């Protein structure tokens, strides 16, 4: 192997857990990890977008398709618009509120991280864990949203619209269900981020977790608004 002109080894991130000791390398390490995680998230939401774009194209195409009616021996439209349960509007408000909550949590942890880097002294004022209530609130609102969606599906079923009843009901369940599955991923991420706070993990780690979860959560909120508009106005 080639002889290597190496420099001294640098070990660790330079940040000890939660006590505010830091250095330049630690800040660079944090910035690198945050940038990488954000890039990963940006890449990860692309196929989710492609998934919903595909569903949208299928939705638009399927609406316009005629079907053969053997009773009248002619082509007819089988697209029966389904009245969306009004609870979906309440759910939307809940999700938007949760998005606000996670943003507050994100800003709080950013402040916490900045303080740790700015004031390495152990005597610096502690802001550790101040974002936890916002995270918990978001988590609860997320669960409430999922419960609301479940209620909406029960209402649809009660009015006779199951997954396979009509093409429009199929798409309602498909779009809302796929969104809910992705949102459950966000709920799990929120839970993990909250647990990291409870367990006093390194502030940089917590900051990255909350940051990524928050952006994902915002994406979920925007995606939900899009789905609702599609179902309500593109019929």
């Amino acid at each position: 192997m080639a002889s290597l002109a190496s420099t001294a080894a640098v070990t660790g991130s330079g940040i000890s857990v939660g006590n505010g000791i830091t250095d330049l390398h630690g800040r660079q390490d944090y910035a690198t990890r945050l940038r990488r995680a954000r890039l990963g998230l940006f890449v990860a939401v692309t196929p989710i977008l492609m998934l919903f774009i595909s569903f949208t194209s299928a939705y638009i195409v399927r609406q316009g398709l005629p079907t053969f009616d053997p009773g009248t021996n002619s082509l007819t439209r089988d697209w029966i618009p389904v009245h969306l349960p009004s609870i979906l509007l309440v759910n939307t408000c809940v999700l938007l509120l949760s998005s606000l909550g996670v943003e507050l949590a994100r800003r709080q942890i950013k402040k916490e991280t900045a303080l740790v880097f700015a004031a390495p002294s152990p005597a610096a004022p502690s802001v550790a864990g101040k974002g936890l209530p916002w995270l918990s609130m978001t988590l609860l609102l997320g669960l409430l949203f999922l419960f609301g969606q479940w209620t909406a599906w029960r209402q649809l079923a009660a009015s006779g619209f199951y997954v396979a009843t009509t093409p429009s009901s199929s798409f309602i369940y498909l779009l809302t269900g796929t969104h809910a599955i992705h949102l459950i991923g966000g709920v799990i991420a929120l839970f993990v981020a909250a647990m990291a706070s409870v367990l006093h993990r390194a502030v940089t780690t917590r900051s990255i977790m909350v940051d990524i979860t928050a952006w994902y959560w915002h994406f979920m909120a925007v995606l939900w608004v899009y789905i609702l508009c599609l179902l309500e106005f593109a019929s």
Partner: protein
Amino acid sequence: MATQEFAAHGTHAHAAPQGFIRKWIFSLDHKVIGMQYTLLGIVAVFVGMFLSLLMRLHLVWPSAVLPFLGEIKPETYLSLVTMHGTIMVFFVLTTAPQAGFGNYALPIQIGAPDMAFPVLNMLSFWITFLAFLSAVGAFFVTGGAPLHGWTGYPPLSVLQSSGPGEAAGADLWGISIALFCVGALLGALNFITTTLDMRARGMSLMRMPLTCWAWLLTAILGLLAFGVLLAACILFLLDRNIGTSFFVPLGTINGVVTAHKGGSPLLWQHLFWFFGHPEVYIAILPSMGIISQILSVFSRKPVFSYKGIVYSMLTIVGLSFTVWGHHMFVSGMSPYSGYAFSITTMAITVPSAVLTFCWLATLWRGKIRFTTPALFGIGFVSLFVSGGVSGPFLAQPALDIPLHDTYFVTGHFHLIMGVASMFGILGGLYYWFPKMIGRMMSESLGKMHFWITFVGAYAIFIPMHYLGLSGHPRRYSSLTEVGYLHDLIPVQRFITIAAFITIAGQLLFVVNLCWSLFKGKKASDNPWEATTIEWTTATPPPHDNFGGLTPVVTNGPYEYGVPGAARDYVMQTDPAVATATGD
């Protein structure tokens, strides 16, 4: 070896595992994961080849009774067609060159200690492995494997009563494809993030080896295409199991009216081929990168027009999303749409031709070392041209409509997508095997393997073009009763014999692989005298690739024959010589 530039980097994301399970099974190390993917690809290719042998046997000897398998029925033949295509396209051509070699070599080539997200990397392999088990498992459920072809066209694929393999077998097929999509998406996430964010100091995008460009672009293609296929698979499984009607119109199956109505089989075709045509490039782009690398190394010349190759691959990626309709010319699409898809398809020949000329110009007046990887690289170019020239025929609706359902298409896509890509994979395997294992593969066995495979590939697939031009339909299991096809049976027999010899030739590869694993000559760190970074580190590389150091890149990836240099090559990390691209 000259002094090369390295700097220290931070602690590796995870420590070197000690136990067998963590080191070789549930490993987070990109190198082990790369080798796992490669091994999966090798197992899958032999399964796929075995299925193709059974198909070839049946075509020329339809009433043969095979040991353990009995007589191959027409529906079994269709199952073999389906699973051969599925396994080869997904688990060989998509898996080995991208996930296999890419996982192994990409981080080392850009000077990174690992992939950006090692846990996701491990998950992506195991999800892909589960997908493979699900696909193969379709043979063992009631009714057997599905009949609907690897393209899964509804309504045949969606209606459980439409054939013996369309019950649980088709569900397993759909689940397999959906799982594969998830695994591939996780892989693409890692490839893109790693390439964009973890390059060593000095490794600008335009200093990356062309392999890295190919893996990056393939990952972008996969990121955009597999999401669409996943959506199609979800609708497919809902139609099959919940009773929705996304793809199935009103109709009768075996005299019984189905519960579906109003769906569109064409909707599946649009979604499938929006994925399906980029998939062709997902299969071949990594091989293009690999052979660009190999041709430069073994002709001892810089690759001809590095930028030309990069921009051509970029153009192909862009155009690949605009051509899916050429797979649907026979679906009754508007002639105007057909015309548009025809133009975009023809346009792809331009960057493809540029690539071919770049490869030929790289070889031109080179001091070619005819090693096994070099032979497979040159073989790739030959097959790419031979398979590619029939592309513009099929790009024109007027020609595609009579040829579409014939062996002409089978010959075309096998040459360009199947065998050419396989040559890239084999070239890559012979090229990186010394780095992976620390031993050389046998050159004499390797060359025998090459010539049998090269001649065999032409002997199998060129005659298929003539069969197609003679009107021989594909997918049919038995043609002995059809008068005008009777005269073509000798050609089919010739193809079958060629297939047997070619597949038997692959045993040479297996022998070489097994023998070289334990008895091969010890490999040095840089046995090919190549310039890219993986050849600067130990063979096999340590857990973090560079022993706690990070390369500092000062040169381009293909610095051969540099005036003033002590040797005929300059490593990417060698600071001793300023080169044209090492500003």
